[in-house]
């Protein structure tokens, strides 16, 4: 398996006024294609920051991040946005669906940035919604869906563009046990059936258990276990 994500000696320091807060220190990490990786660690360990850096919504203070050969630390804002729309599917802890749009429209949202025809968009949206098992709920607005259902819509939104990398930031963190289980099963299927590379941050050992590999972060440093 070839390496999909290469994190090379990345350091991230946040500046709050004059105060400098180091979050990540000289981190290096390789994620091979097809991997299902869980990042674990206590709060404040920097795991979400690392995830944000890999998904290109934040930039490192130093070091480089290569995803499928592209050094995203070198991209400017608009190039990065374009890159994200093609390569990253992001699943948030609080689903972050747009409340004014229906499930169908929420999933369709990232496709607005593509040149797909109306028909192709429709096929894709319906396909992913049936993968997540919500084909019958596509006209519902987020408010009419349960937390687990909303997260499934969010996952559908994340994979509808067929991204290189699927990123999850505590995707089960706000769900009850049963719904969490469903989400983890779904992610597992996406990894095994659809060959999606997944990086997921979690503090729940049970959730981490569904991953192939677990990496621990503590005080901004990777600790191998």
């Amino acid at each position, binding site marked *: 398996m070839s390496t999909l994500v290469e994190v090379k000696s990345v350091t991230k320091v946040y500046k709050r006024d004059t105060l400098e807060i180091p979050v990540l220190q000289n981190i290096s990490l390789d994620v091979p294609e097809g991997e299902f990786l869980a990042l674990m660690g206590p709060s404040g360990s920097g795991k979400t920051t690392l995830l*944000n850096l890999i998904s290109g919504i934040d930039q490192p203070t130093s070091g480089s991040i290569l995803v499928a050969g592209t050094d995203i630390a070198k991209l400017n804002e*608009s190039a990065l946005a374009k*890159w994200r729309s093609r390569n990253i599917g992001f699943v948030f802890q609080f689903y972050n669906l747009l409340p004014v749009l229906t499930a169908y429209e929420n999933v369709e949202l990232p496709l607005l940035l593509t040149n797909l025809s109306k028909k192709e968009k429709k096929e894709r949206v319906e396909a992913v919604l049936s993968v997540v098992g919500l084909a019958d709920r596509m006209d519902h607005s987020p408010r009419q869906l349960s937390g687990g259902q909303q997260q499934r819509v969010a996952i559908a939104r994340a994979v509808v563009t067929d991204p290189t990398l699927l990123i999850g930031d505590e995707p089960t963190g706000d769900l009850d046990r049963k719904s969490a289980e469903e989400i983890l099963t779904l992610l597992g299927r996406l990894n095994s059936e659809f060959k999606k590379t997944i990086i997921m941050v979690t503090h729940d050992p049970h959730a981490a258990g569904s991953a192939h590999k677990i990496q621990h972060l503590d005080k901004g440093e990777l600790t191998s276990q």
Partner: protein
Amino acid sequence: MNVLKLVYKNLLRHKLRSLLTILGIAVAVLAFGLLRTVVTAWSYGVEASSADRLITRHAVSFIFPLPYSYKSQIEAVPGVTTVSYANWFQGIYKDQSFENFFPRIAVDPETIFKVYSEYSVPDDQLAAFKKQRNACIVGRKLAEQHGFKIGDIINVRGDIYPGDWEFVVAGIYVGNDKSADETQMFFQWDYLNERSRQVAAWATDHVGWYIIRIANMNDAPAVSEAIDAIYLNSAAKTKTETEKAFQQSFVSLSGAIITSLELVSYVIIGIILMVLANTIIMSARERIREYAVLKTLGFTSFHVVGLIAGESLFISMLGGTAGILLAFPVCEGFGAQFPTMFPVFKMAGSTIAMAAAFSILVGVIAAVFPAYRSAKMQIVDGLRQIG
């Protein structure tokens, strides 16, 4: 679905707020239209006046009369075809309220409708007007407002020309186009002159101003100069100018009031801006997390700016359109309240264009700050925001 739909759906998120904002803008645009229309109605006389008519008045002010003897001298000036004359009578009809004010002017029955070719009077009515000493002719609008009919007697108390005056309606004149002033009353100058011998000796054999028709409107400057040159060294010097310039000098008398009305109309734009900016800033702040999500999905700052500006423009244009549409009936109603003060009270095309332009401009400006802030926002900070 496209981004426009998202704008539209966002608009419906806080229906009450959007509605109130649209209403607020509509009211302000309405006020803007009304004020501007007052300003244009004020100077309407300038628009309606003809370029081939000259007015000769006393050089200092038209409240000083000119000798009647000037008439034949002016007639002799080359280029002049007809000379008519008039006196401002003023007087009080019923009381001094706005409703009962209308221009009452002593005119020469033989020539007045020759120089004012935009007014038509039926031949038999004009003949009756010429025949009877105290006859008068009233405008159609004026007749409608006060219910004057042919044969009616109009009683006016004189102030400049003291005494009680009685005029018999001999005819009703109609304007040939929409901009003609149909609110005046004309009566015989001879009647005024005769009675002024007793009550206003200073005004006897004097006229307020001469109205001169010229053969070629390009000659206006030369003819004006020729007339004024005759009286350069006499006690009552004249000032001759086109009717347009004459009307303009009237309007400029109240320049300060017009300027302040214009100023106030710009303050309205400021108020619209405050109301709209408030709404857009609030909406953008509430959605900062959503914008961060959109950016995570690969939407650019440009898209987010478009969303905010789109919503702002949508609201401002809806409000602007509603305001302009509302302004039509309101202007009509307002004008109907002051038929003689504003003979023509109609919203001008330029007013509508300005109102529309300002709505769009305000829509853009209101979005600048929140759009800038959302564009500059770091995704990570935006996601952390609790909505």
